[in-house]
């Protein structure tokens, strides 16, 4: 099955505890899906495991990227195939300038040294879209950034690297409404037939600005329901309890 990110019966443990218990999910290229669910459902774990976080152990199941099994690949190999994870808690890397880091990352993404003109064109466009200042480029990666700036920086990387499949892990958490709009504008600008996103969020709020094609709901390590954008609204209105009962009753 080409041109999709597919999770097949994925079981994952962390420090001896099983967190994902048979996740099935398909994200076709060109679509934006939301992944919702209560705290502890395993949403962030799924995001990290798709990206290849070595702290988690895949017990069973597969992750397919454009039909290729990437379950055993190193995180950087996955990234070079067009996968991207916007971190919930972006990591500080002191002494590494944002511009220099982006140039190295883009080189890996393109498989060759980016042409300077193209690199700067991408930077400039991304920074304008995010209402940001070029001075961010000479700052050290996430060091001394506010929570909002860190999230914005994730989207800056997304815009410059132009992955095919992006996972946004609670990018909305800790953002005020203006920052939320800016982030949404960045993600929406990427939308098109060659881009997919899995938007992990706790709240419906972000989905007002990034309207998903499909909404998945995770509970206790599994995707328990999949629907259209209206599902997010329903969850917002009714909470998760009704769904818990529905799952329990099934």
């Amino acid at each position, binding site marked *: 099955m080409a041109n999709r990110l597919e999770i097949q019966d994925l079981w994952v443990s962390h420090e001896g505890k099983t967190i994902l218990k048979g996740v099935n999910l398909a994200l076709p290229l060109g679509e934006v899906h939301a992944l919702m669910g209560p705290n502890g459902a395993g949403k962030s774990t799924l995001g990290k495991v798709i990206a290849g976080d070595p702290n988690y152990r895949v017990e069973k199941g597969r992750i397919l990227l454009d039909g290729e099994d990437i379950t055993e690949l190193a995180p950087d190999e996955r*990234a070079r195939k067009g996968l991207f994870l916007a971190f919930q808690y972006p*990591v500080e890397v002191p*002494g*590494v300038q944002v511009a220099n*880091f982006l140039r190295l990352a883009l080189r890996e*993404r393109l498989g060759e040294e980016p042409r300077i003109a193209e690199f700067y064109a991408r930077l400039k466009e991304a920074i304008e879209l995010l209402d940001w200042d070029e001075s961010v480029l000479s700052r050290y990666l996430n060091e001394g950034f506010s929570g909002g700036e860190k999230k914005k920086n994730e989207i800056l990387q997304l815009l410059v690297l132009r992955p095919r499949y992006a996972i946004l892990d609670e990018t909305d958490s800790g953002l005020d409404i203006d920052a939320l709009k800016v982030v949404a504008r960045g993600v929406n600008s990427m939308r098109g037939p060659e881009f997919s996103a899995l938007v992990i969020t706790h709240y419906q709020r972000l989905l007002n600005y990034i309207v998903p094609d499909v909404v998945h709901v995770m509970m206790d390590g599994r995707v328990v329901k999949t629907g259209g954008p209206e599902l997010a609204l329903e969850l917002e209105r009714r909470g998760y309890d009704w769904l818990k009962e529905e799952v329990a009753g099934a």
Partner: protein
Amino acid sequence: MPEDLKHIADDYRWGFRDEIEPELALKGLTPETVKKISEAKGEPAWMTEFRLKALETFFKLPMPKWGPDLSELEKKFDEFYYYVKPPSRGPVESWDEVPEEIKKTYERLGIPEAEQKVLAGVGAQYDSEVVYHKVKEELERLGVVFVSIEEGLKEHEELFKRYFAKIVPPTDNKFAALNSAVWSGGSFVYVPPGVEVEVPLQAYFRVNTAGFGQFERTLIIVDEGAKVHYIEGCTAPLYTTEALHTGVIEIYVHKNAHSRYTTIQNWPTNMYNLVTQRAVVEEGGYHMWLDGNLGSKVTMKYPSSILKGRGARSEVLSIAFAKTGQHLDTGAKLIHQAPDTSGRIVSKSISKGEGRASYRGLVKVSPRADRAKANVECDALLIDPESKTDTYPYMEIENETAQIGHEATVSRLADDQIFYLQTRGLPEDEAAALIVRGFLEPVTKELPLEFAVELNRLIELEMEGSVG
């Protein structure tokens, strides 16, 4: 660890030797050796006397016991060569006169042809004899002296004598005494009052004989209001026998003068590198030590600045990268002797494998030094669980108005940083190297570009296969 050594040997791209037979080689540490060195150099009697007296001092002084283990070295003093004269006619003035083999060596070192570079002059030390030393006409016109230390003694004896061994006397420590007895090679620099040398003065040198000790001696005098940046990069091939490098660097920074001394050493990992570097800074003057220590088996090196005149300033920025089998004991000393003096120490160390990097520093404020300010920042990064670091910050503050700051951090190469960078496409090794480079950035950003590039390449090499 043979496997590790092999790795180092494979990686050591400058680990090659030339097939040049030395004209004269003196082994063993005796008054006879010292006399022969002095004779071979055609030195005045006072220098021969000085050397012989320094040798006595050397025998009298105890081995330093407070730092790295030198017990193996202590048994081997008689096994080293203390003087090797390569087959050349001594200092030459033009590139054409440099022997072909030596040019080839430089080519393999990746040193671009000096003539074509924007270098002010290149002093290249080949074994213990300076074979190539050129000062651009422009510098000569300005009255700047940039010659081998031997020439400095011959051509500028009065000036030489006024400063030589005044900042670092032979009695300072055992290895300063050793150097004073057998010194050979190094640079002599004099910058006249008010002259600002815009381009850095660079010197390259390397060691080229098994069991051979290198004892370079450099004397730099920066006269009133003058400005200079002296750069020294050392690379040396790898040998199986123990090697010894004991240098003495003396710098006199006169009133309102500005100087900077940059050095990066990448000695082979069987080398004892015991160097005394000291500057005296007069009123309103400034001196920066920029010190990179990558190689050697043991390094003991604490660049010092004596802030002698009112308002004198100094910065000491250093990097140490200790791998398995290495103990790098480095640091800095700031001696505040006058009011309104200020100093800053930034020390960044990395320990990898079973490597050990130690910071040893002294801030001393004398009773006269009102309002002295000093700030010390030492950061250690540990790559592996078995890596070691330690910190010995000494403070002797005898003036209540002094403002002294000290910060020390120890961190580990963090898995979350590596994962983060990997998710952006950087392979694990490159991610680790980038984190290390970032850690060193506060120091490397002060390096001349070609040095920074070189250092980054070395770090990448060192970080290959180091994680995972």
